[in-house]
């Protein structure tokens, strides 16, 4: 399903159209501190790739580079057929991000937030919004201000926001934190449903058991280097 090449250069292989993420020698430094070193990665569409690592290992940095929040210091790559780097609107239009911050406007209701983000993405799909609200159990609270929500509800609202524009790539950075068991089961079901429809998920987590349950491939990052990979065709083409 996926190929990962760590710390060595290799030309892109396989059919480019089937490739959701392709990274070649990506590094990221903040000042003199290198947080990601020479990461090469290739993921096909429909893959759920789990990224493991301790706090500060560099896994969230990798996710932020893939989602165009940060530019790599060196290296190149493509996400959904477009060159990575800040400002790439094509990648942004086709990817959804869930991280530690919800992006939601707390003085507005969830319904208003969804309208706001829908207008940013040019999406007006009331039926889709309603189905997401019902799926994540927030339909009855949709008109309440976000400031009245609990942490778990904000997490659910954040997941709804990230799925509003039908993204091809769903980047989840520690998405299970703050969710109760029901919420976790719901999210797991969403991830499975998502990949079964040929869409790609990048799941950043330090809960290895959750990753093993959901992901078809995984990598482990330590001190910025990919040190382990599971469920991947090493070196060769898939």
């Amino acid at each position: 399903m996926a190929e990962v090449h760590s710390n060595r250069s290799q030309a892109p292989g396989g059919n480019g159209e089937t490739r959701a993420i392709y990274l070649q020698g990506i590094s990221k430094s903040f000042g003199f501190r290198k947080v990601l070193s020479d990461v090469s990665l290739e993921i096909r569409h429909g893959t759920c790739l789990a990224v493991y690592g301790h706090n500060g290992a560099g896994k969230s940095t990798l996710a932020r580079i893939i989602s165009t929040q940060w530019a790599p210091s060196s290296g190149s790559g493509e996400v959904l057929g477009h060159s990575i780097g800040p400002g790439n609107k094509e990648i942004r239009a086709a990817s959804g991000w869930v991280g530690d911050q919800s992006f939601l406007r707390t003085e507005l209701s969830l319904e208003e937030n969804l309208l706001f983000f829908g207008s940013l993405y040019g999406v007006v799909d009331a039926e889709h919004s309603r189905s997401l609200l019902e799926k994540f159990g927030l339909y009855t609270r949709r008109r309440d201000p976000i400031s009245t929500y609990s942490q778990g509800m904000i997490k659910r609202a954040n997941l709804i926001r990230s799925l509003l524009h039908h993204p091809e790539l769903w980047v989840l950075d520690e998405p299970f934190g703050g969710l109760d068991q029901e919420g976790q089961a719901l999210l797991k079901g969403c991830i499975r449903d998502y990949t079964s429809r040929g869409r790609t998920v990048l799941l950043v987590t330090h809960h290895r058991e959750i990753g093993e349950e959901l992901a078809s491939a995984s990598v482990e990052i330590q001190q910025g280097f990919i040190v382990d990979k599971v469920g991947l065709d090493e070196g060769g083409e898939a």
Partner: protein
Amino acid sequence: MSGFSLFFTLVRWDFLREMRRKEIVLNMSLFAALMLTIAQLGTSGDSVAMKNVGPVFFWMAIVFTGTVGLGQSFAAEREGGRLTGVQLAPIDLGVFYLAKVAATWVYMILMSIALLGIYMLFFNFMRWDLIPSLLCAIGVFTLGYSGAGIILSSMTTALRGGGEIVLRILILPLMVPVVLLTLMVSQATFGTQVAGGILGPPLELWKYTLTVLSLDAIYLTTGYLVFPKIIEE
């Protein structure tokens, strides 16, 4: 979504946020009212001083309270990663900048109108014939102020602690040319020449408006081009 409809959508959402939070306009107006109250107490009874120094206090109140509004307006965008949420949307971030300037401009004008009412009361300024000229000067002045201020506050609110102080340090020198021009046009706006005419002959309103609008255009164009580069990483 076209640039125009995105612009109006963003402005509309900013107004809705301000209507719910009620912090920017109210905060600025209270701060400005406090300044004018102290100024009125300092000049009380001296009608000549009130007439000659009053306009200086008026513009000083707008400049200082403006930094409060600018800081709050952009700090609100940093809460909960809201700005990152906008950044990750496939939109022209330059349009987001212009929308933010437009919303802040409206807040500053509302504050200035409230301030003008207080000024008329405290400084016995009853020149209704000069109100249109004064509103014109307020409009062009606050437009450039918002344009330059949003760019600076987008940079300074990212600083950990002391962001508002840095904003004030940066914006005041940038606005000095416009402030001087605004004081020079006092004859047309307040019917008096401030500082005993040491700033030079009175400036005509149309010349002032054209000059400040040109500066506004420079600030806004620079902001539109530079803002996305500031926000990206």
